[in-house]
C-alpha cells in the first residue's frame, strides 16, 4: 500500500515537476523562492495524495496547491520588511540565454501578475480559456480579456523600435 503510494508519487513528481517549477518561477519571479514553494507544494501533494482520484486532474490539483502556497508566502511577507517585488527581477540571473530570450523574459516578468498568470497557464500547460477560468475562479470573459491584454502589451514592448516608428509615421 505504502509502496504503491510512493510509486504513484514519484511518477507524479517526474511527470509534472518541470512545468510546475516553471509556473512557480513566473508566479514569483525568483528562482530560489520558486524552488521553495515547489518543494512545499509536492510535500503537501504527498500528504494529500489519497485524495487525488483522477490522474488527469493532477496538473490543476498541483497548481491549486502551488497558488495557495504562494498566497501563504505573501501573508508571511507582510510581516517582513522586504518588498517581494524587489527581491529579484526575472532575467537578471539568466546569463546563459540568448539576448532575445532574456529580453522576452524581462518583458514577461514586468507584466501585471493578473495578466501573467492566465498567460502562463495557457502557454506552459496548454489550458483552454474555460480551464483557466476554472483554475483561477474567474469568468471566461475576464480570462480572455486578460490574455488579450497580456499579449498586446508584450507585443508593444517587444516590437522592434524601427517598426514602431514606421507604424507611427505611416
Amino acid at each position, binding site marked *: 500500500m505504502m509502496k504503491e503510494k510512493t510509486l504513484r*508519487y*514519484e511518477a507524479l*513528481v*517526474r511527470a509534472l*515537476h*518541470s512545468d510546475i*517549477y*516553471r509556473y512557480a*518561477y*513566473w508566479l514569483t519571479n525568483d*528562482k530560489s523562492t520558486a*524552488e521553495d514553494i*515547489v*518543494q512545499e507544494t*509536492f*510535500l503537501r501533494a*504527498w500528504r494529500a495524495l489519497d485524495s487525488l482520484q483522477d490522474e488527469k486532474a493532477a496538473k490543476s490539483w498541483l497548481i491549486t496547491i502551488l497558488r495557495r502556497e504562494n498566497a501563504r508566502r505573501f501573508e508571511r511577507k507582510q510581516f517582513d520588511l522586504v518588498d517581494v517585488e524587489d527581491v529579484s527581477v526575472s532575467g537578471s540571473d*539568466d546569463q*546563459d540565454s540568448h539576448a*532575445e*530570450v532574456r529580453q*522576452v*523574459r524581462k518583458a*514577461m516578468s514586468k507584466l501585471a501578475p493578473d495578466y501573467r498568470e492566465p*498567460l*502562463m497557464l*495557457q*502557454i*506552459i500547460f496548454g489550458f483552454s*480559456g474555460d480551464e483557466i477560468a476554472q483554475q483561477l475562479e474567474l469568468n471566461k470573459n475576464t480570462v*480572455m*480579456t486578460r*490574455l*488579450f*491584454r497580456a*499579449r*498586446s502589451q*508584450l*507585443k508593444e514592448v*517587444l516590437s522592434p523600435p524601427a517598426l514602431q516608428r514606421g507604424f507611427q509615421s505611416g
Partner: protein
Amino acid sequence: MDELEFRRRIYANPADDDDALYTAAQSDADNEAFWKDIKSLDDKLRNAANVPVPDDLANKLILNTSLVEFNQHKRRNRWYIGLAASVAFTCGIALTAWQQQHTELDQAALTHMYYAEHEQPVGNARITPQLVNAKLAQFGAELDPSIGKIASINYCLLDTIRSLHMIIETPQGRMSVFLVPDNSQVAPNEFSDPVYKGTSYALQKTNVLVIGEKSADLPAFTSQLQQRLKLST
C-alpha cells in the same frame, strides 16, 4: 467579424482554430499577416517561458518529501521509542543483576584477554615502578619491580568490578595479572580456554588472577608473583 474582434481573439489565443477566424484571415491580408505575426510572438513567449529547471529537481523533491515524512514519523513514534528504551533499560538492569549472580570471574578475565590483546599503552607513557605502585596502592598492594617489565597497567571492569590489569613481560612469557578487590567472588584455582590458561589465589580480600598463554610456565611465575606482590604496610 470586424478587425477589432479578430485581433482581440487572436491576442487571447493565437492557437484558436475557430472557422470564423480562418474565414476572417482568408478574406483580409492584414488579418492574415497579423495572425502570423502573433503566432511568431507566441513561439517566442513559449520559448522564453521555458526557464531552465534546477538540476536534478525531481530527485530533490522526492528526497525532501521522504526526509520530512521520515522525521515526522519519527516524532510521532517518539513515545513508542521512549517505551522501547525504558523496556531496554529494565532488561539491562535485570541482565546485569543476573550476570552478577552468574558470571564467573575467571570467564570475565579470559574474555578480557581478547580485548586486552588490542589494548596498547596509551601515548607511550613510560610505566615507572612509581606509577605501578601508585595504582597498586589503591588495591592495598605493592610490587617489587624485579618481577619483570610492566608492559601495561590499566583499570578494567571484570564482571562490573573495577579491577586492575597488569601485563608483565617475563622469562616465562607474557603474563596478565588481574587484581579484583572483592573476595566474595571466588575464581577456581585452575581455568582455561582454547588459547589461555589461568590460576588464581587470594591476597587477603583481593582476588589475584594470573593468566598466560597455554605454553607459558604459569606455576613458576605465580610463585614469583606471590613473593613480590605484597600487601602494602
